[in-house]
């Protein structure tokens, strides 16, 4: 128990030191890496399109430094089914995606992970704001995220 508490304390200290860091997409033309990540995430989302999901035109892209995370707000409708997909530009740069509700609680999703690509699928019980948390798993990465619904 003591070691768990020590580890939690250490992680809390690290979190305090780093603070919440948020990455932003560039308003300029997409970089080559963003284009590559976009291509890969579209490839992943194609599987959902085959299952009747509509792909939202538009994407959110940026660069994550090591240990950095980005949190993006989305506003969803109860009863719809959603898949949120993300990919990085390099196969060796793993990425994770998680969905949180408006009170900050982690939402149970259907996960998909494939090296540098990840997806989370779920159907909200209530309409309102939700938050996507995209994080790298150890290396800097340019990412692109998109979503599909039905």
């Amino acid at each position, binding site marked *: 128990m003591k070691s768990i508490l020590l580890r939690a304390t250490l992680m*809390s200290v690290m979190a*305090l030191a780093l603070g919440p860091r948020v990455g932003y997409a560039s308003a300029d033309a997409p970089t080559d890496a963003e284009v590559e990540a976009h291509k890969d995430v579209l490839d992943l989302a194609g599987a959902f399109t085959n299952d009747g999901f509509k792909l939202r035109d538009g994407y959110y892209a940026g660069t994550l430094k090591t240990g950095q995370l980005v949190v993006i707000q989305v506003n969803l409708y109860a009863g719809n089914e959603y898949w949120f997909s993300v990919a990085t530009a390099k196969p060796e740069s793993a990425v994770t995606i998680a969905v949180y509700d408006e009170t900050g609680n982690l939402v149970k999703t259907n996960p998909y992970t494939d090296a540098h690509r990840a997806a989370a699928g779920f159907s909200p019980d209530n309409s309102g704001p939700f938050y996507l948390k995209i994080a790298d798993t150890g290396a800097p990465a340019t990412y692109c995220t998109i979503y599909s619904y039905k």
Partner: protein
Amino acid sequence: MTVWRCILTGLLALTGVHAWAADQPVPKLAPAVLAQAVTDDSFSVPTPGELLAALNKVGKPNWQAQYRPPIPTAYTSRPQIALNLGGLIADGYLAVEAEDSQQVKNIGKDIITLAKTLGISENVLKRGRSIEDFAENNEWSTLKEELDATQNEVKLAMDEQQDEELTTLVTLGGWIRGTQAVSGWIASNYTEPEAKLLRQPGILALLRAKLAALPVRTREDDLVKGLDPRLQAIQEMVSFPVTATPTQADVKKLNDAAGELVTNITSKR
């Protein structure tokens, strides 16, 4: 042990990060992190198609009943053109849901006419032709994506013309017209699950913040100036708690407010 617990509790309170200990729930996102979340109106604001898809799951709406008469297409104010372009795109979604190819084509033409007045018709024109072709061939599923793409094409063209502030108005115009149509249907065919779909506190908070950040010259446009008080009233109507359900009277009130705003947006001045 007590010392460690005190340190831990203090640090967790400061950071908002919850414990990873085995007997604790998974970490929450702290309110400070949620407040700093990225919002982008092209990603964070749902398309009218998403709202219509949700409503289709709990009812069989007659979308033709929510059509409106053709709107003017000869405005001179660029913010007003942008707001009405968004509204027309929402009309396009309604026509696609109603699987009404003639209405889709009519709306496509109006979108192109309005886009031309902003000088952004080149790529939008191509989309317009695609919309006409897909409507001709009853490709309803493809049309939904094409409308979404048209909205983004309009915004992209605005960006290229240094009219990027107008993109928020396109999104806003679409959301208001979509809300008017959907609340109109629900008010006339009330069920609790449909009424609960109208809950969307985040969208108007986001759009009002974007409006407040518009350049002064756009904010001082007569039409834009009058938007915020009306949006504030609508925001209150769609910000009910997760556990609450609006009554039929509440939905009617929302429909009236959205309708008044749409009338205001379409009226020539």
